[in-house]
């Protein structure tokens, strides 16, 4: 981290602390206590998993060794006596800290700050296989790996991730993962202002592109920044906005904000599914003179012309519908071409084909589970969590942090013929970075109401959450979650 940001942060913190009339020492205590409460509290699984809950005999196969898969493996290892656990994961750095990619994209962290080697986090006794499952045969409790090897299991936990489908956008290529091989996507993404923080190398390139963008603005050029959000479920629903807030902050820091137009083009028609957060975000956008155009889905990028083409769609009044006893609504759309200097792409995301099209997949691709128990809807000895699971609103590390405990408890219950009592309530969290030094900690669940862990107004931007995001969440995730304890 550069000293400039450090100094600025300390300045902000001191200013805030003074405003509240407390000492810095007390403030730090509060932040620490707050962080502790954050990791412990929440609205989902009771931690009642105990050594006496029952044991699991038989082979447990975990497909995917990212944050969700390794945390689950670790908790099973902590909980069971002498478990037989195998994890299949193709990427060496699968446990890298993806939430930090936003900070890398804005030049606040380095890629080395977020890169972690999976082998360093494999719980003792767990067998890691560097390979990929290419065929699922759940009726016979078997999978086949790319190497041709077959693995039989008694229980399977599907904790694979999402595919970033850049290739779905005309002019771009590649279906990649966050920390895996990405040369296809990088042919175009990362150069000439085209950026994406959704993969680690892309985040590094984003910072290079952003610096150029800011230099141009500083030199007096009128520049346009365009930020997209696709029509698919995505991981970390806040990241498309966070990188925009940070671009705004970097432009202000450079004294060049007035030369830049920043516009958000989401496919949807709101900022956030939770009204309170939606209202807070629109207010923050207005305060920063950041623009938005709803109902725009990116379909094409012309890197030579520097234009992005969107499908703009809207509802129109249609003919009278006798069944509905109302005028019907019909969809209409047209293509809109938008010039850019800096384009941040949030790619469409999908389940890997080998899962989506297998018997454990679904029409939409995601692994269908009972959303509370995380048990597969067809195969009782299969569970799923993390980005690949079909649950509403999930796909964050915060969701996985609640889900893996539920999976472990319910798998043990299932193995012992007991009722699956542990329930996931849909908790997820979006520490929405609103500037360098402030974060709005948006926590919510399926009730679509804010579910704050702290007794503060959750719609306010606070420096304390910045401390949480900037300093505490990474060690808590990397050392707390990956060891199966937090």
């Amino acid at each position, binding site marked *: 981290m550069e000293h400039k940001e450090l100094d600025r942060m*300390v300045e902000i913190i001191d200013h805030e602390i003074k405003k509240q009339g407390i000492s810095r020492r007390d403030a*730090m205590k509060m*932040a*620490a206590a707050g962080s502790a409460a954050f*990791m*412990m*509290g*929440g*609205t989902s*699984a*009771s*931690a009642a*998993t105990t050594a006496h809950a029952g044991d699991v005999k038989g082979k447990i196969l975990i497909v995917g060794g990212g944050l969700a898969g390794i945390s689950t493996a670790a908790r099973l290892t902590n909980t069971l006596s002498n478990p037989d656990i195998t994890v299949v994961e193709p990427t060496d750095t699968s446990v890298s800290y993806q939430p930090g990619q936003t900070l890398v994209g804005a030049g606040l962290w380095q890629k080395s700050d977020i890169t972690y080697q999976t082998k360093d986090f494999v719980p003792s006794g767990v067998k890691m296989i560097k390979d990929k499952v290419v065929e699922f045969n759940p009726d016979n409790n078997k999978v086949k790996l790319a190497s041709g090897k077959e693995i039989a299991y*008694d229980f399977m936990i599907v904790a694979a991730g999402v595919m970033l489908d850049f290739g779905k956008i005309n002019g771009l290529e590649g279906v990649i993962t966050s920390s895996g091989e990405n040369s296809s996507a990088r042919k175009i993404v990362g150069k000439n202002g085209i950026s994406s923080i959704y993969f680690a190398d892309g985040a590094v390139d984003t910072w290079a592109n952003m610096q150029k963008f800011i230099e141009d603005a500083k030199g007096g050029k009128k520049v346009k920044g365009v930020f997209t*959000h696709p029509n*698919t479920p*995505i991981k970390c629903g*806040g990241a498309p*906005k966070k990188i925009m807030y940070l671009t705004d902050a970097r432009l202000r820091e450079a004294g060049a904000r007035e030369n830049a137009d920043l516009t958000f083009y*989401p*496919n*949807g*028609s709101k900022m*956030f*599914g939770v009204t309170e957060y939606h209202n807070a975000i629109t207010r923050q956008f207005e305060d920063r003179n950041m623009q938005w155009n709803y109902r725009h889905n990116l379909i094409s990028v012309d890197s030579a012309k520097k234009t992005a083409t969107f499908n703009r*769609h809207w*509802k129109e009044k249609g003919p009278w519908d006798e069944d509905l006893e*109302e005028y019907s*609504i*019909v969809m209409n759309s047209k293509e809109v071409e938008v010039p850019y200097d800096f384009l941040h792409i949030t790619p469409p995301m999908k389940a890997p084909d080998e899962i989506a099209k297998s018997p454990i997949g*679904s029409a939409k691709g995601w692994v*269908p589970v*009972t*959303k509370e128990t995380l048990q*597969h*809807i*067809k*195969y*009782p*000895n299969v569970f799923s969590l993390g980005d690949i699971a*079909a*649950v*509403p609103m999930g*796909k964050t590390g915060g969701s996985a942090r*609640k889900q893996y*405990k539920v999976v472990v408890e319910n798998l043990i*219950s299932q*193995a012992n013929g007991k009722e699956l009592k542990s329930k996931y*309530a849909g908790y997820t969290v979006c520490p929405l970075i609103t500037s360098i030094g402030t974060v709005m900690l948006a926590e919510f*669940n*399926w*009730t*679509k109401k804010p579910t704050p862990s702290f007794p503060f107004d959750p719609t306010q931007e606070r420096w304390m959450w910045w*401390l949480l995001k900037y*300093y*505490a969440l990474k*060690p808590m995730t990397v*050392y*707390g979650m990956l060891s199966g304890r*937090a």
Partner: protein
Amino acid sequence: MKKINIAILSAATALFLVGCGGTPDAGEAISYSKTPKEVYDQSCKKCHGDKGEGNVKKKSPALNDRQSQELELDLYDVKNGGLNQSSGTDHDVMEHNMQKLIQKGYDYDPKAMAEFLEKSFYKNGVKAAPKVEETPAEVPTTTETATDANATVAAPAEEAKPQ
């Protein structure tokens, strides 16, 4: 600045020793004036068909090809306008219609409706996830389904597989 790091990291370290507390949040209780069957028979049926088979002409999708957990996600989407911050919804038109239908009293709990739809219309029943300590999947009760030649009754809950 180092002090900040130390303070927060020590808090994080302390966490290693503690578990996770809290109780499940069941959400707000909403009561509905009609049962899922009443809502379906009086409203949904007009477009989605007697047996949930859908209506191509009206662009109404079939509801008999998915199990309740998948249906529930779609119904949740229809009622909430999308499952992600700004991704939008797969159900633009139905989202609008649903608001109108709610005004007319045809509101429902997505989970209860999804379970009704699966029980009554699901046609690809292979095997249902066992519901331990609950009654096994019931034979469809509505007369429409009972006469549906295509309907295969969902297999009774299997025993938990490996022990």
